[in-house]
Structure formats: C-alpha cells, structure tokens
C-alpha cells in the first residue's frame, strides 16, 4: 500500500501567539514550531497501515528550508521518504493553492491513499483535504476517528478507524459527525483526513532520528508545477480577540445560588 501523508509546519500550540502591532502578522519571537498535531496523527495512521499491509509511506510538505525540519520529524517517526514542494515567501499557501500543489505531487507519486490532518492549527481552515479530493475526483472521508476503548474484535470492525479491506481495493473509515460516528467505504485511491482521537502518535526513537537524516528528500519547485500561486484568501488584518473579564469569587454555594438566581437570573 502506497500512502502519501501531508505535513505542515505550524506554531507550537503551546506557544503564546500575539498579534504584531501593525496587525499584519503575529509576533514570531519566542515562538516554537512543530509538526501540525493533526498531521502527526496522519503520519501515525500511515505507519500503522504500512505495518499491517506493507508498502511505503511518503511524506510531503510545502515551504522552504524550515519545512524540511518537519519532514525529517515525520521521517524519524518512520516514514520512508519525503517530497518538498519548494515555495519561497512568508505565509503558507491557502487551501486552494495548497490543494493544487499537492495534486501535482499526488499525480507524480500515484499513492493508493492520501492522509491529511483535518486542519492545521495555524489557520484552522479545515479545507485542504476536501479540496485535494475534489481536484483529484477521488472519494473522501473527513474527520477519521476511532474509539480506542472498543475492546472486542466485533466492535472494532464496526467502528474501524481507517481499515483496509482484505482485497486491498478499499478502506473503511469511521468518521466523527454531529451526533455520532459514520462509517464509509471508499474504493482506492482515496483521500482521508484525520481527527484527534484516531490514534496516539509514536515518539521518534533515537535510531529513528539518526536514520531520518539519511532518508531521501526530493524537491520540486512550486513554480515548475503550472499552478496559479495567487492567494484566494487574503488576510487584511489580524486582531486580538476581545478579552472576557473575570467576575467575582463567591464564598460558598449559597452565595453562588443567590447570584445565579437574583443577579444573573439564569436559574
């Protein structure tokens, strides 16, 4: 099974994000960067599928030299090789552009399955996987999830996470929807985006990190791909969100009840 997983470099969610005084960007001093947490889950799922069915996991990123750091992180987890779509410039491309660039990579690599994080935790757009599937004309399953607490084999079959059929022609995907889990069957090739609870990503081992340094990273120039690079989503300004002011501390439940009943009138 040939699996392509996309990885994006994002600001570490643990870092404090502040808007620059000019409102045109964020303060980058003191901000750490890492692999998008949802993409980490996608890499993990790709590795598990390879461990079960054999094949290859290729990781792909868009960006400049810093993106290579995240490709190496995914290689250290166990991916086999990497593709960098080299794109200079500041902000990462929007989903319309990113999906067009990734389509070019998919057409070259011809994977059976493309796995993406459901969203990147910088722009929080949640679109690239769906747009990529649409551009390719492939079936899609977004928000792949799993209930790890399901112990019995029958239960796991019912809610499979991402499971390949025995004949290798399709995958079954359980996906988080409002009010429950929906199971879809997608003939391959297909695009799957992953949600938070699909798996717990492994840590890279020291030998993994050493090996990753020698794994191949192929580069493609974005400009060579015949993809329009003009952004569709133009960020005009960034603002700090309104701060919610803290209220009062109450001494005991009696006072809390009184406040809710008489002052806020919500009970």
């Amino acid at each position, binding site marked *: 099974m040939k699996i392509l997983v996309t990885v994006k470099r994002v600001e570490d969610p643990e870092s404090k*994000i502040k808007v620059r005084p000019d409102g045109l960007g964020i303060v980058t001093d003191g901000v750490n960067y890492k692999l998008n947490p949802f993409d980490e889950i996608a890499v993990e799922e790709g590795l598990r599928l390879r461990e079960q069915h054999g094949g290859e996991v290729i990781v792909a990123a868009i960006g400049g030299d810093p993106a290579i750091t995240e490709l190496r992180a995914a290689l250290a987890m166990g991916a086999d090789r990497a593709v960098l779509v080299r794109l200079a410039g500041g902000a990462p491309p929007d989903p319309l552009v990113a999906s067009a660039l990734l389509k070019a990579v998919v057409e070259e690599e011809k994977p059976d399955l493309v796995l993406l994080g459901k969203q990147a935790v910088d722009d929080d757009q949640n679109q690239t996987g769906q747009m990529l599937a649409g551009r390719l004309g492939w079936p899609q399953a977004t928000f792949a999830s799993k209930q790890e607490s399901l112990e019995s084999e029958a239960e796991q079959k019912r809610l499979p996470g991402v499971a390949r059929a025995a004949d290798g022609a399709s995958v079954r995907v359980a996906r988080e929807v409002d009010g429950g889990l929906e199971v*879809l069957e997608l003939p391959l090739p297909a695009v799957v985006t992953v949600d938070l609870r699909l798996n717990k990503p492994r840590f890279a081992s020291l030998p993994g990190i050493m090996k990753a340094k020698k794994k191949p990273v192929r580069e493609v120039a974005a400009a060579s791909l015949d993809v329009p690079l003009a*952004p569709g989503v133009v960020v005009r300004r960034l603002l700090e969100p309104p701060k919610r002011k803290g209220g009062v501390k109450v001494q005991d439940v009696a006072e809390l009840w009184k406040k809710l009943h008489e002052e806020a009138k919500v009970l």
Partner: protein
Amino acid sequence: MANVLVLAEQSRGRLRKPSLAPLTAGRELARRTGGALTALVMGHGAGSAAEELAAHGVTVQLADAPVLEHPLAEAHAAALAEVATASAATWIVAPATAYGKDVVPRAAVALGAAMATDVLALAGEGSEVLLRRPMWAGNVLAEVELATPVKAFTVRPTEFAAAAQAPGGSVVPVAVHVDPARVRARFVALHEVKSERPELGDARVVVAGGRGTKGDFGPITALADDLGAAVGASRAAVDAGWVPNDWQVGQTGKVVAPDLYVAAGISGAIQHVAGMKGSRVIVAINKDADAPVFQIADYGLVADLFQAVPELRSKIAGG
C-alpha cells in the same frame, strides 16, 4: 449580480437548527451586496425540511434525489456546485458543522472559490465584505478577503442569531445531475449517540466536567438533568475515555454559547475556553484557586465539585 446561496442541513427530513445561522448571515450579505438570496436543501425525502426552512421567509431550492440520500461529500458537493452555478450565486454560506465542513470545500474547489471556515461576523464596508474568523485556536481573529469571483464560507452557528420565522417563503424543486456511478464512497452505517438531553450546540444550559471529576461524571450529569441541560467535557476527560467524544467542548470539539455554562473540575485551558467563552454566564467550580478558568468566569467558587455540585442541586430543588 452577487446572488447568495445558503446551504441548509437536514437529517431524515428534519431541518437541523444550525442552518438558521447561515440564513441570518446570508440575509446580511444580500442586503450589503444587493444580490438575491435563496437557500438549498439536499437529500432524499427532504421536502419537510425544506418546508421548515421556507417558514423562515426564504425561497428554498429543494434538490431531492436518491443519490443525495446520504450526506456523501462527492454527491452533495457536486449538487451544491451545480445549483450555485444555476443560481448565479457568487456567495455560498453554510453552517460550520461536520456536514458543512465536509461538503463546502469540495464544492468550492469545483467553483474555483476561495473559502473561509468558522466565520464569526461580517466585517468591511458596504459591498466590500470581509469575513472575521478565528485563527490559532481562537487566539487571533483575522479579517479576510476572498479574492476569487465565487466565494464560500461556513459560519459558526453560535455567532449568528437563528433566523426567525417569517412569511413569504416557498419551496422550489430543482433537478440536479449527479451521476450515481461517479459517487464512489459508500455509506455503511451511522452509529448515533442517543441521548435524552438537549444537543450541546442548542442547549440553554451546559454543565461540563473535566479532569477534576476523576472520571466520575455522576454529579455533572445529575445537575444537567435537574436543569434540562446538555453535558459537556474538557478534552482531558474525553482523552481519558471517561465520556464520549461528542461531549467535548473546545476549539477541537464543539463551540457552545449557552445562557449558562457551568465548568466543574475544569482548569480552563485555552483550547477549552475557545469553545465556551461566548456563553452569557460562566460559572467555575474548582478546587484549585489558581485555575485559569477563574480568569474568565463570571462567578467562581473554589470548592470540591463533589461537595459543591450536590449542594447546588439541593438549593435548586429547594427553590
């Protein structure tokens, strides 16, 4: 002409309530751009949902066909793109639900449309519409312009008032030409989480528990049931496997804005606060006086939830 098409969501012939938020956003947009507004309901046997929506004073295009029975993105995105083109729509507005987020980007790419997700408000001046949306888990708000001829966005249902009932609506059937052979994904099953409680997104009151419950949600659910409230949870409680996934409130879970939000045993991580800070009144009950949740709570009580919550219940029962 900048026509506006509002995508509504239905389930088994019932309109889903989050659909009334994009209708409000769509009306504001049509007023500002001078375009005509219609809505779209897709499904099979979805006529009653279309009628429900039309009762809010809007012309509803009803695409009813066997190929649209399940909310499969391939079919619904193709039909949405087809209706948008036939309606000369330059704006597509949808609820930021699992359905909206699944279907709209795929339709947008077919229309060459740039898209914004989770829009909180319309900004800009007159017909120059900017969309305000959260980035970096709600730590930053962005005002974005969509620079393509056709534009699409989903709105966060808690941020726009639900459109009120109004006269003058109607249902117009539309034919869509989606070839079933080109819809490859197959619907296998929907495992619904059945609950007697109101849906998190709709509830007037939400009672939520976190790590402080140590896995015992008994007091939380009891208080919720006393108040006819929905139950929420922090990511820590969901990750620990104590409660179902769909109870999670936060940036990666559900975003709620009830009249009253009771956070019991929840520290108040940024991720969680992003999902509930729009609530009218927030109550925090936590043993740790330094918990960040107290910085945003209207009423904070430093106490053990296992004592405070039952005590609050008896106060409520006693009037």
